[in-house]
């Protein structure tokens, strides 16, 4: 449940440690969850970002619920390429899907 003004932790080495959500991209909705694209502001600059993990539990297709203890974002540019070259922390398999985030040469944990 990421909404406008939510402060998220930046999970890559692009520079800023935290980022504030200022908009949700895609079809209009109030809350963004894991895998959604959002607009964030960090250290006076505007970036696009992909929500990597979310505190509110998410239901999986098999009926189980998964919850993570932080709200995290990965910063990308407007074309969808990651800004940093290294990603820390837990990434759900949904974020790693190529249509959501093409990590390419970016190293993950």
């Amino acid at each position, binding site marked *: 449940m990421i909404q406008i003004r939510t402060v998220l932790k930046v999970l890559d080495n692009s520079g800023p440690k935290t980022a504030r959500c200022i908009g949700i991209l895609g079809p209009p909705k109030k809350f963004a969850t894991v895998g959604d694209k959002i607009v964030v502001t960090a250290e006076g600059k505007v970036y696009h970002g992909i929500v990597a993990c979310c505190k509110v539990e998410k239901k999986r297709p098999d009926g*189980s619920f*998964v*919850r993570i*203890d932080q709200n995290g974002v990965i910063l990308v540019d407007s074309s969808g390429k990651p800004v940093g070259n290294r990603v820390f922390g837990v990434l759900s398999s949904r974020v790693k899907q190529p249509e959501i985030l093409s990590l390419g040469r970016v190293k993950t944990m």
Partner: protein
Amino acid sequence: MRLEKCYICSSTVYPGHGIQFIRNDAKVFRFCRSKCRKTFHMKRNPRYLKWTKAYRKSHGKEMAVDSTFEFERKRQRIERYDRELVGKTIQAIQKVDAVRTKREKEYYKNRMKQAKKQSQKTAVRELEKGISLIEPDILRVNQAVKAKDAVQQSVAMLDEDRQANDS
């Protein structure tokens, strides 16, 4: 389908039940119900909660070390399907389960034997400690018994005298 164990109470977590929590260092915790999840988030140790399996095992209430526990192990490599092997495994599971339940029963019996002795010991100790509290009561009861006996004796003697006079 994999049946997981709850992190707190070690009960089986069936698919579609409970909740998974993933910590920042990517360690996965599974909980069977909200009770277990809440105790985890309150940072309680399952070893010190009396209702968990971990407590019962670490405090010697249940069998903790046994060769039958070593059959159950998580396998990383998936075994190729073989109908005969599956049949054999299912039979073996039943056998191992029967042996385990038997051993668990024996363990419980042995534990209860000691428990009975212990409870008797503690009862005796308590009685010795608090004998002064119930002493006056005992004396009073003894006096009452003595008085009753004396009355009965005197009545019997009177009866005998009456019979002697009559004859």
